[in-house]
């Protein structure tokens, strides 16, 4: 998965587990950038009575590097508070939740969350947690409930809309939403973790004969009917870049984005339910920039450590994973005879993958793809989702983003990431060698590298993963959460009730 349960330790701590990160120029308001960080993976819609919620004891952050040094220049911090409105009830709600109101003993909604949003400007304050000029953009902001069902949340969309807050303070502004949404990432988990037997090409897999696998099987969207919790921000672009860019070729147009979750270093419990406390400095336990990095690039022995490190560590102790990714060496063995050119390239011990380093660690320099760059301008290697904010949204988006054919969509991944981008396919093609010729003219990619896919879209213009995803055309863009009453079912219902 993009980053769901991607490391041993964080898989045991779902509320702090970042799952996906999106950054894109807002298609309906191109003077703004939308940032979405998802947490709490694989939520079963009916998972009550204690439905999913953010961690009160977790500090959630979205960071922006606008100078290319790998460190945050701006951070947005989310901190949550939970209230039991009806402590004597075991139910999430004891009547329909018809409106979004502050916590109250007279509410039908029992367990309710609010949050604060703080912007931290690190410029001139030095590097380190807690350093910066802080602006509290909002306090007591209301989260929506989870989508329970037609009797409990009969007007779910209106509750979610009421949870979109317009904030302004200290010369800064933001539109914000924090709460449950439909999972937007689509991938065939069952196939990829079954030794990579991608269904459309399973007949070419080394184990096809033994398992009776055939080519042409349709992919399965394993995350089609689950929910996540989203932290969504829409911010004027001018508040994120270091200067007003003169155009798409101006390095000032590029921002690097990543999200982290942190816990305080000490927790002491006294054995009485929530009778415990946390204290001490915040210690990072989860990190996410580009999709699938910790999932498919970093070795399992280093995954927990990777989650605790800043992005600048990627160019140091983790660089070898990017330079010679294990998945690229496995592909020729899993699919015998399908990737001979990749196998030959891999056989030279000194060969590395500068294409992957550019895509994932530095941004793509201006000379690689005519008319496009999201290079950080410094060459500092750090896993960040890099967005050229001066590139306008596409009027006809291609879910393969820059790898779209015959012409790439420069507004899509890996130039930031839109909710509908088929990032699993894009990254798999890149790892298979499709992007290597861009930086190594002596290398020709295998024909299969540009054709491999998870089989989850009907084509490059399919922005719904064959009607298994139901994105919104407005903030917060991810779809209405799946209702607990209606899911799971043989036909997942994506809208309330």
């Amino acid at each position, binding site marked *: 998965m993009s980053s769901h349960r991607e490391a041993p*330790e*964080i898989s045991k701590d779902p509320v702090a587990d970042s799952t996906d990160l999106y950054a894109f120029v807002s298609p309906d308001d191109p003077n703004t950038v939308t940032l979405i960080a998802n947490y709490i993976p694989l939520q079963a819609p009916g998972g009550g009575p204690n439905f999913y919620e953010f961690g009160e004891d977790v500090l959630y952050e979205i960071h922006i590097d606008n100078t290319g040094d790998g460190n945050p220049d701006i951070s947005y911090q989310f901190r949550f508070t939970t209230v039991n409105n009806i402590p004597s009830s075991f139910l999430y709600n004891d009547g329909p939740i018809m409106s979004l109101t502050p916590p109250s003993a007279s509410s039908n909604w029992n367990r309710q969350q609010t949050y604060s949003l703080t912007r931290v400007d690190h410029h001139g304050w030095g590097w*380190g*947690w*807690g350093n910066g000029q802080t602006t509290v953009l909002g306090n007591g902001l209301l989260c929506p409930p989870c989508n329970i069902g037609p009797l409990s949340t009969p007007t779910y969309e209106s509750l979610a809309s009421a949870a979109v807050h317009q904030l302004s303070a200290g010369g800064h502004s933001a539109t914000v939403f924090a709460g449950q949404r439909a999972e937007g990432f689509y991938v065939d988990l069952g196939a990829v973790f079954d030794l990579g037997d991608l269904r459309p090409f399973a007949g070419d897999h080394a184990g096809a004969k033994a398992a009776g696998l055939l080519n042409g099987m349709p992919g399965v969207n394993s995350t089609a009917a689950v929910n996540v919790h989203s932290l969504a921000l829409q911010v004027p672009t001018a508040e994120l870049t270091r200067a007003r860019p003169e155009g798409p070729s101006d390095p000032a147009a590029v921002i690097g984005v990543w999200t*982290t979750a*942190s*816990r*305080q*270093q*000490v*927790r*002491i*419990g006294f054995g009485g339910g929530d009778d415990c*406390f946390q*204290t*001490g*400095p*915040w*210690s*990072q*336990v989860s990190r996410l920039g580009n999709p699938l990095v910790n999932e498919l690039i970093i070795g399992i022995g280093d995954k*927990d*450590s990777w*989650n*605790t*490190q*800043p992005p600048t560590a990627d160019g140091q102790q983790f660089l070898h994973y990017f330079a010679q990714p294990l998945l690229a060496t496995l592909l020729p063995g899993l699919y015998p005879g399908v990737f001979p050119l990749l196998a030959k390239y891999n056989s030279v011990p000194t060969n590395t993958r500068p294409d992957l380093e550019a895509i994932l660690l530095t941004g793509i320099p201006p000379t690689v793809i005519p008319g496009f760059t999201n290079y950080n301008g410094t060459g500092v290697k750090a896993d960040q989702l890099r967005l050229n904010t001066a590139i306008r949204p596409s009027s006809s988006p291609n879910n393969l983003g820059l790898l779209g054919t015959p012409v790439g969509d420069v507004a899509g991944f890996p130039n930031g990431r839109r909710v509908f981008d088929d990032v699993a396919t894009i990254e798999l093609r890149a790892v298979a060698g499709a992007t290597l010729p861009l930086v190594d003219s002596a290398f020709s990619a295998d024909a299969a590298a540009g054709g491999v896919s998870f089989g989850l879209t009907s084509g490059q213009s399919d922005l719904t993963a064959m009607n298994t995803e139901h994105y919104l055309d407005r903030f917060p863009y991810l779809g209405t959460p799946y209702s607990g009453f209606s899911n799971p079912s043989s036909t997942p219902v994506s809208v309330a009730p």
Partner: protein
Amino acid sequence: MGTTDHDGEPQESGTWFGNFSRRTFIQRGTLTAAAVGVVGSVPGLSGLLAGGASEAPAAEADATEFEAGGGTLTEPLVAHVKDLSTGEISLFQGERQVLIRDPALASRLFSAVRP
């Protein structure tokens, strides 16, 4: 903590990444809970911190004066004895960590939890 007997300035650790892996973070948290107490909530521990009247070194008298000066514990304070031989103790309060060195205090805390 400037009045405590430590052989150097307190070292504050507030970096958001530090060198804590998640596993060591949890392990350290466990050791902390097991090896020390919450100052102010463990009977007799405040006396330990103040030092026994008959054996308190001069520096600890300063600590006693600090407490007598009206300090109020408004949020938990946790001490983590990291090394008995050097007396390294990490103090956690709020979002801060302060490192002190006080072999005598470390030894007394250890004695207090020995079976």
